[in-house]
């Protein structure tokens, strides 16, 4: 149990430990209260009083939170919304109990989810809409403005206006795309792929971007405040692709910070400052300042991969969770 470098400032003794006692697969916030999404059945509200809320009768496959609601999809074929009071409500259920694989939240109460090859979307008080794509939906993301959903699948992304009659726009690139993100300025689409690389498109003209050099499949993406950088996992250091300027990362090198012997497993950019929380496969959690790479240690290595990281909207509270069921909360 050592810090990555002896000189690194450590806040580890200020972490409040939470015994999640099950693999943590996500973390979301209601104001300053972190809510850990467990691999099976429950959400764990980790405020001053801890509270477990059973939301699924099985594995929790996907989750999304926007500060007002947490929506989860399960292998019980149910889509469940949980509010800050901890009351779960079923939003949808598949009659054949097929898995709800993906979940995304959009503006004005919109929610999207997928079952197999079908993406479903419902805006608040609006009717349910569905779109079939050519292969299983692997990722869902709403565009930051308007009512538009990006759907990742084999050989590309389908970008869909659910309220428009026009056929959805297709962004094609050969291969298996496993998640999708839209830049905060709405100009770029980025996918993680089965191979250790990202692919991207400039939405205006469909121009391609390939971002490679990773040692493993990229499983975590996070936009820095105002979308200046895209932070990613998948390498033995934090990778930050520059998305400022007209060309985005095209023809530019990423910033490489916080090198380690262990691979970065999860990243979460601070919502207000140019800093990133970084979790590693050996259990280390660091805060990394983007400008100069300065490090603050939050958690020491214990060999258990960090699997979830998140900030409250104000950037005052950081929560992390591990595959082993360990979790913690740091109030800055």
């Amino acid at each position, binding site marked *: 149990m050592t810090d990555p470098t002896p000189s690194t400032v450590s806040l580890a003794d200020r972490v409040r430990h939470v015994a999640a006692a099950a*693999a943590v*697969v996500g973390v979301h916030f209601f104001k300053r209260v972190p809510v850990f999404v467990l*691999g*099976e059945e429950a959400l764990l509200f980790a405020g001053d009083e801890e509270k477990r809320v059973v939301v699924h009768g*099985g*594995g*929790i*496959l996907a989750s999304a939170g926007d500060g007002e609601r947490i929506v989860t999809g399960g*292998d019980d074929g149910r889509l469940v919304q949980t509010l800050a009071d901890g009351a779960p409500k079923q939003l949808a259920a598949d009659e*054949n109990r*097929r*898995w709800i*694989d993906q979940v995304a939240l959009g503006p004005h109460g919109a929610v999207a989810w997928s079952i*197999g*090859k079908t993406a479903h979307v419902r805006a608040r008080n609006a009717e349910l809409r569905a779109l079939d794509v050519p*292969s*299983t939906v*692997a990722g869902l993301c709403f565009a930051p403005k308007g009512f538009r959903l990006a759907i990742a699948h*084999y050989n590309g992304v389908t970008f869909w206006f659910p309220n428009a009659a026009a056929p959805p726009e297709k962004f094609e690139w*050969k*291969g*298996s795309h*496993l998640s999708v993100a839209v830049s905060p300025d709405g100009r770029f689409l980025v996918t993680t*792929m*089965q*191979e250790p*690389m990202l692919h991207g498109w400039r939405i205006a003209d469909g121009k391609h971007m390939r971002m490679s050099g990773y040692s*493993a*499949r990229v499983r975590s993406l996070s936009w820095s405040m105002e979308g200046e950088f895209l932070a990613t996992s998948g390498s033995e250091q934090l990778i930050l692709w520059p998305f400022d300027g007209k060309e985005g990362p095209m023809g530019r090198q990423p910033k490489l910070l916080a090198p380690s012997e262990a691979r970065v497993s999860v990243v979460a950019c601070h919502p207000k400052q140019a800093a990133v929380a970084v979790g590693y496969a050996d259990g280390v959690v660091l805060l990394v300042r983007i400008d100069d790479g300065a490090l603050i240690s939050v958690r020491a290595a214990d060999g258990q991969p960090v699997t979830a990281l998140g900030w409250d909207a104000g950037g005052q509270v950081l929560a992390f969770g591990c595959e082993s069921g360990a979790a913690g909360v740091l109030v800055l």
Partner: protein
Amino acid sequence: MTTPETTDKIPVTVLTGYLGAGKTTLLNRILSEPHGKKFAVIVNEFGEIGIDNDLVVNADEEVFEMNNGCICCTVRGDLVRIIEGLMRRKGKFDAIIVETTGLADPAPVAQTFFMDENVGAKTKLDAVVTVADAKWLKDRLKDAPEAKNQIAFADVILINKTDLVSPEELREIEARIRAINPYATLHRTERSQIAIGEVLGRNAFDLDRILDIEPKFLEAQKEHDHDHDHHGHDHHHHGEGHGLKHYHDEDMQSLSLASDRPLNPDKFFPWVQDLVAKEGPNILRCKGILSFKDDPERFVFQGVHMILDGDHQRPWKEGEARTSRIVFIGRNLPEEAIRKGFESCVA
């Protein structure tokens, strides 16, 4: 080329077999036997099986090409996703069984375990088990390339519905299977009746178990001496040593090469990598035990199409014959070129 520790990985058995051969019957037998184990089962159609204790997941067989310029590097995208999801329920099951459709190629399933790091970290491929219809396999080998792939790829083959054919027909079908795949373990069954231990827990892809890659018919006599304690009386371990008619399959063969002289690793690895790069689409499976010059340890490897996996296994034993042996099962293999290439790797 390293083998991570495999102790707590969930074993995965792949069930293949042409349409109507008896796969689902076998699956139901496995699930309903009183073995005290729990399974996660990945099937193509709901409804045909229904065992309350087990997790059943519906899959759409989605074969995805990898972006590495290799046309035979394919993975089952649905397995990547489903296994990750199943791992949410880790501890709720002991093993995973993947039932493929009758027309499926087993290679993308197997390759998923080598190509996807997350799948490979949590699970391990145990064996490919193929159910063959004793009455119809002969015809399918002529008209269905999928059926031939399933035989060539198998670690364990059940020749099922033996009650529907004569002893002569049975011998012929066994000989035809052996012409394609002399290395799989054969069982004769009726209505897919077999002891569960014969199909599960085989460790067929475990590098440490690549101990013996002699064709099975050479050791047939040995197999008569044990394994008579199974319940179920209508399957047999059996050898085909007696009066075996030799068949040659026109396009699918196995090729076995051996050398008593140690190999030069600096020659062998470039050669075998080049071979699978060029012939990968035609090579379904390969395995080898190698003796390198000045190396006190046995090197073992196996491959599926272009993907090779190998490691040092253990020191050669005192008095053990340091024979290097490799076998290939594939389609239209250039035997002479492979033979010469292997010989040129001698140190």
